[in-house]
């Protein structure tokens, strides 16, 4: 199969993230491995600044976010030509602890093709350049979480 036919899924959604559905869409006859990262709302944080979270409220600049997700997928394909399918999904809205909020999945023929690193790169880049923000609501008030990455020209 030509790389141009490899499935790439990228979306901002308010719906539940359906792992099985996404995995089916990026599994080809030649696929034998998938690396999946998913992040969820952490209710109890013990590292750095210990605190509890009641919920997170996500928002996005949707058209730009989806364009930047496609860019992340393109960057993955440039770095790992072995990657077959890519799914990048960010859920937004009010999300409670234990709820998956983001999913990056990459498929390949075999597991030793860089597919783990590709998925890792995907979540790291999403957190740098995809315009999504979250407000954390805890027992004692709310606070916007801000990142610390400043994109450079062309990113």
């Amino acid at each position: 199969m030509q790389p141009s036919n490899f499935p790439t899924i990228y979306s901002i959604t308010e719906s539940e993230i359906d792992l099985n559905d996404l995995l089916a869409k990026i599994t080809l006859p030649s696929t034998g491995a998938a690396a999946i990262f998913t992040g969820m709302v952490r209710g109890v944080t013990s590292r750095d600044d210990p605190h509890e979270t009641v919920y997170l409220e996500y928002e996005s600049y949707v058209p730009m976010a989806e364009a930047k997700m496609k860019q992340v997928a393109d960057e993955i394909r440039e770095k790992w030509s072995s990657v077959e399918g890519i799914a990048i999904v960010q859920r937004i809205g009010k999300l409670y602890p234990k709820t998956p909020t983001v999913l990056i999945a990459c498929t390949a023929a075999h597991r030793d093709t860089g597919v783990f690193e590709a998925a890792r790169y995907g979540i790291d880049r999403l957190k740098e350049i995809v315009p999504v923000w979250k407000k954390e609501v805890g027992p004692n008030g709310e606070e916007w979480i801000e990142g610390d990455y400043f994109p450079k020209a062309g990113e």
Partner: protein
Amino acid sequence: MNKIKVLFFATIRDKAGTKSVELNIPNEMTVQALKEKLANEYPNLKDSLKAVLVSVNQEYSFDDAVIPFNAEIALFPPVSGG
């Protein structure tokens, strides 16, 4: 004159008190000049604009860039998705 739309997100929206605004700006205005204009019109934004990200037509942009006609601009803090 150049009619543009400016969108605000997250903390920037909270401080501006609005999600978006339409503005008439001079031709050849730069991103830096727009930030200065917004700091004057929305004094609450002034401190936030020092470390704001700016997009022009959904691509990251920088202080020296000239704003194109009918652009869609967005101002927002460093992203925190995931």
